[in-house]
């Protein structure tokens, strides 16, 4: 029984041309994660389309429009399990007009896989994908140098691409980057080690995914407990019970800890921690628990329980790296709802400091239009303080979304600088 196995979430960005769908198909096929009726279905489709073999890329086909156009539009989630780990793939499109979908898929990932066609080396799209991985602070990057079969499995080609990628990575905030030469089509270095590239000493992709250290990906230092809802059971034995329900965003919470409630500033001690009917001595991120306090304090959704000696910043003025997600551009000085953990306030974009040209990754100043897929650094003012950390230190308390109250749509996602 796979008892202590962890869950790893990774994102794949790329277009059909990079062999992304083939790579995912190969990963699922060679790890025996594909069922016979699924295989039968794509064998039939491959035959209908007049292909010679089975087109593994068909596994990742989604909605009707996507099948017709042969592209990925939205984020699709796929699952497989090996004896070592459970995996969730956020499969995202690669083209520039779907930047927002890549950002969405990247937001919860432990690992970003970036595909490079060995024939073309590092191209504009590679830079953009690396930039998004860095912006969303994905802890690990695996660079898959694919289609090695089309460059005679050449070590020189591989080395040249590694060098090119390292040059762009040196300008980004990325820490852990690994390179794997592969042929997804033939299966080299995806699940099984390649016999065509004896010069490559590293592990194949699946082994890398199974062993990469992710236990430290969540911040376990700064204790942040955003209150989702208050449990007040109206039943015997629990008349005065007030349990604060939430999911630890980061850090560890122990019985007896001295805590401060933000934004009110009241202090108390943790009396009990519960997960269903189990009493716990401690809880850590990302556990969903409920806690009780020694003192009777007015606490509601949107408040945050933190350790008294380690508090987030309470601020009404935040600087944010903002990705615009909506068809309608940002309206200057318009008010939006801002969502941060369980807290909802009203916000206004005060200033666009600079914007990225997402083709060249150059910073543009003096252009304050925010359109779909634009990534920019902005100043935001909120009506009441948010309890924030920087996104680099805390992905949960460092992230926000903006909602347009006239349409109720989620229009932007931001990372607090």
């Amino acid at each position, binding site marked *: 029984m796979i008892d202590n196995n962890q869950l790893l979430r990774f994102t794949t960005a790329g277009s059909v041309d990079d062999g992304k769908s083939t790579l995912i198909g190969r990963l699922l096929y060679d790890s025996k994660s594909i*069922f016979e009726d699924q295989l039968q279905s794509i064998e039939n489709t491959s035959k209908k389309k007049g292909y010679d073999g089975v087109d593994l890329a068909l596994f990742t086909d989604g909605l009707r429009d996507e099948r017709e156009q042969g592209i990925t539009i939205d984020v699709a989630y796929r699952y497989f399990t090996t004896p070592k780990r459970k995996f969730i793939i956020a499969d995202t499109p690669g083209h520039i007009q779907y930047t927002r*979908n890549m950002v969405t898929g990247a937001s919860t990932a432990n690992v970003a896989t970036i595909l490079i066609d060995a024939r073309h080396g590092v191209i504009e799209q590679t830079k953009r994908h690396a930039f998004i991985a860095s912006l969303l602070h994905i802890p690990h990057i695996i660079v898959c140098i694919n289609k090695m079969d089309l460059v005679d499995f050449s070590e020189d080609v591989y080395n040249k691409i590694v060098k090119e990628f390292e040059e762009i990575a040196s300008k980004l905030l990325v820490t852990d980057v690994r390179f794997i030469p592969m042929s997804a089509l033939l299966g080299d270095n995806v699940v099984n080690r390649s016999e065509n590239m004896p010069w490559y000493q590293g592990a194949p992709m699946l082994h890398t995914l199974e062993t990469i250290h992710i236990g430290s990906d969540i911040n376990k230092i700064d204790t942040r407990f955003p209150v989702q809802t208050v*449990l007040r059971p109206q039943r015997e034995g629990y008349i005065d019970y007030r349990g604060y329900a939430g*999911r630890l965003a980061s850090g560890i919470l122990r019985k007896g800890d001295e805590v401060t409630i933000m934004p009110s500033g009241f202090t108390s001690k943790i009396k009990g921690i519960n997960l269903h009917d189990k009493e716990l001595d401690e809880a850590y991120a*990302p556990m969903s628990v409920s806690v009780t306090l020694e003192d009777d304090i007015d606490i509601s959704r949107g408040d945050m329980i933190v350790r008294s000696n380690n508090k987030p910043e309470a601020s009404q003025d935040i600087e944010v790296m903002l990705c615009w997600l909506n068809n309608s551009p940002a309206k200057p000085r318009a008010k939006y709802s801002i*969502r941060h953990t369980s807290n909802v306030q009203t916000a206004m974009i005060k200033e666009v400091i600079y914007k990225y040209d997402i083709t060249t990754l150059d910073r543009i100043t003096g252009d304050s239009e925010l359109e779909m897929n634009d990534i920019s650094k902005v100043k935001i003012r909120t009506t009441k303080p948010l309890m924030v950390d920087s996104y680099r230190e805390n992905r949960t308390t460092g992230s926000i979304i903006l909602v347009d109250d006239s349409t109720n749509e989620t229009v932007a996602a931001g990372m607090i600088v």
Partner: protein
Amino acid sequence: MSKYYLNYLDELESEAIFVLREVWAQFENPVILFSGGKDSILLTHLAKKAFYPAKIPFPLMHVDTGHNFPETIQFRDDIIKELGVQLIVGSVQESIDEGRVAEERGKSATRNALQTTTLLDAIEANKIDCAIGGGRRDEEKARAKERFFSHRDDFGQWDPKNQRPELWNLFNGKHFQGEHFRAFPISNWTEMDVWNYIKRENIAIPSLYFAHEREVVRREDTWIPNSEFLILEDHEEVVIKKIRFRTLGDITITGGDESEADTLEKIVIEVAGMRNTERGNRSDDKRSESAMEDRKRQGYF
């Protein structure tokens, strides 16, 4: 020294509890869609955990096609009693009687598609603003694109090309009057995860999931249970087999597999060795490449 990371089942549980609490906090009048199948039972179990020591603070809703396994209805009534929550029933038979929908004709006629109208009527009549479902992304390719919080317009329809982006764990359940949401707390679970968790938590499930002897008929590579609704073809014959069901839908369309798995331990081992997807025996999904996508667009579960 204790470890400070969760195993995958604990992480999935924590995520589902978070989503359930988010639904409760963001909506006025949510319900759990309860079919009596393992996924909705799991969902109910997670809701019990999420709000303990309080009761589950919203009703369960069952869309009753009238073509049930009797065991499922018994199970439903028992669980309602145990939890002390309200049950809302939307009846497909009533929808037919009122002329809202017409029964399908022909040999493979089912009431599957009719459920959508009954579901949407029940949502409207009970002013439900969020229906929590046990849908999982691994079930089917249209479901793979589903959000945790999934918007439905005032006709109850899903627009897969115009879904709200969902980043981190920031869920946006804002909606206008008349619109509603579907929420899917166990989106990230696979069939295997569900069984491993049911076994770990020792959750009670209907006896139909365990291997048992039953009158069945061979039809399209599966064993269809004999029932008052079944119309036999000339060449068909009722036989007794030891079977179990991998999923539970209407008694008219849910096929069973021959099996010896009569305990949770044996089921987990059997599922791990399965070579076909669990919906492979559901004739409702076999109709076309985009059968599920089309039904979901109209407001299906």
